[in-house]
């Protein structure tokens, strides 16, 4: 059974359709990438899955349960999902450790000591052990984004949503964040990532989806999308990416 099912989702902002009937299935341990130009609807789709946006039509199912039902407890759904944002969005008034243990302690009721031990393990795993007591503004962008990923992981989510997590980083820092995502895949984490890192996307994805104007024009394994795309628009997009030197 699929872990997440997106069924004909529409989303409008002030009369302008941002998502126009998106369908997607994500199986456990699958890594799905969303590619496409800015404004194609990638981020909006992730925010709909996280219920930060309410869909205007269609439905989203998590573990077979419809989460777009207005009677569903949104906090309960979000407890099962982890999201990482382009701008990190760490809490600036808390140390790295407090950022990570906030949700386990205050939402999942884990005791302080246990939460901190678990956070310490995660930090060590991603090479951040010495940063536990630092504040976000004392870290580089890449370190901040790794902390944000650890923060999302600390609640043991069923599914991770990564929203252009490297777009605010310089090329050197991109590498360290991508390495973390690779590790997550190896550990079997199910992920949906919106990304502009085409080389990485090709490497890591099981399925690549090309979005344009809120429509999923093409979907398939990376070898197919990147070498033999069916749709003319996909070819144009990939050529543009190639010409800009980002592949």
């Amino acid at each position, binding site marked *: 059974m699929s872990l997440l099912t997106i069924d004909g989702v529409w989303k409008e902002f002030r009369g302008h359709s941002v998502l126009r009937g998106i369908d997607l299935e994500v199986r456990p341990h699958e890594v799905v990438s969303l590619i496409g130009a800015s404004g194609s609807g990638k981020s909006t789709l992730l925010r709909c899955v996280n219920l*930060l946006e309410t869909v205007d039509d269609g439905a989203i199912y998590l573990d077979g349960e419809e989460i777009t039902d207005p009677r569903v407890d949104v906090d*309960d759904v*979000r407890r099962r999902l982890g999201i990482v*944002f382009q701008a990190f969005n*760490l*809490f600036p*008034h808390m140390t790295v450790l407090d950022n990570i243990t906030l949700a386990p302690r205050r939402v999942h009721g884990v005791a302080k000591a246990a939460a901190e031990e678990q956070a310490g393990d995660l930090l060590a795993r991603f090479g951040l052990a010495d940063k536990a007591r630092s504040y976000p503004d004392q870290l580089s962008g890449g370190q901040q984004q790794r902390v944000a990923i650890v923060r999302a992981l600390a609640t043991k989510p069923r599914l991770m949503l990564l929203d252009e997590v490297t777009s605010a980083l310089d090329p050197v820092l991109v590498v360290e964040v991508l390495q973390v995502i690779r590790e997550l895949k190896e550990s079997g984490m199910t992920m949906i990532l919106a990304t502009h890192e085409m080389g990485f996307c090709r490497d890591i994805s099981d399925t690549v989806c090309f979005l344009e104007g809120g429509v999923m024009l093409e979907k398939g394994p990376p070898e197919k999308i990147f070498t033999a795309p069916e749709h003319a628009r996909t070819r144009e997009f990939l050529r543009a990416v190639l010409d800009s030197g980002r592949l």
Partner: protein
Amino acid sequence: MSETSEGWAKSERQRERERVRRSRARRSVSIAGASTVVFIVLVVVLVTNSPGWPRVQELFFNPEWFVKALPDVLSGFLLNIKIFLIAEPLILVVGVLVALARSITAPAFFPVRALATLYTDIFRGVPTILVIYLVGFGLPALRLQGIPTDLVTLGVIGLTLSYGAYVAEVFRAGIESVHPSQVAAARSLGLSHGKTMRFVVLPQATRRVVPPLLNDFISLQKDTSLVATIGPLEALRQAQIIAASAFNYTPYLVASLLFILLTIPMARFTDHLAARTRRRRG
């Protein structure tokens, strides 16, 4: 100075630049000093040569009455400090609660939100002195069980009602200044609205509103004298009593000086905090 830690010797050109900068800085300081002295002398000459100066000096700057009034006004001033110290925490509590009430969006809390809005609208509109009058004379007149009749308590209630509305608005501005992405991050971790407020939004908002809050508290320190209007013997009231029997206004000068002595450290502290915040964001 001329040699840095890495052993690089400053060039002749750079030394010349620094010499010019130092001499300019010295010149600025001397100009500022000279113009201050000139200004003070001008004001003193102007005031002391005015036709009414001997009379004003006698009425407002009488050393004899200054010494006589000081003990009573000072003891009254201790009451001002007491009122301030009691009212301040109460105002903070009211301010935070009202600001939070205005931020709740759940439909069941509509009456709470409406009430909080009504409260800030009313108490920001009514002059503090009127609030103190209404509370001081109006509340006891109800003759309800449990309503305090002590005038100082009533004065504190009046000040709290009036300033609570201002402080609530300061907190609300602070809450709204926290970027929505912080709320999105907290909510997506599964934190409820209440926990998001408590752990993420309020701590950040509070740090930002400290300078404007201190500004309101400086204002509160002097507005404690408004409580005089309903009777308690605080600094202003003491000064009034002495002035009325002595036909001399020097006691008011005493009271003013005491208030200034209290507010200036607070004002400098506020400036210091504001400067620190600027540096951090800088």
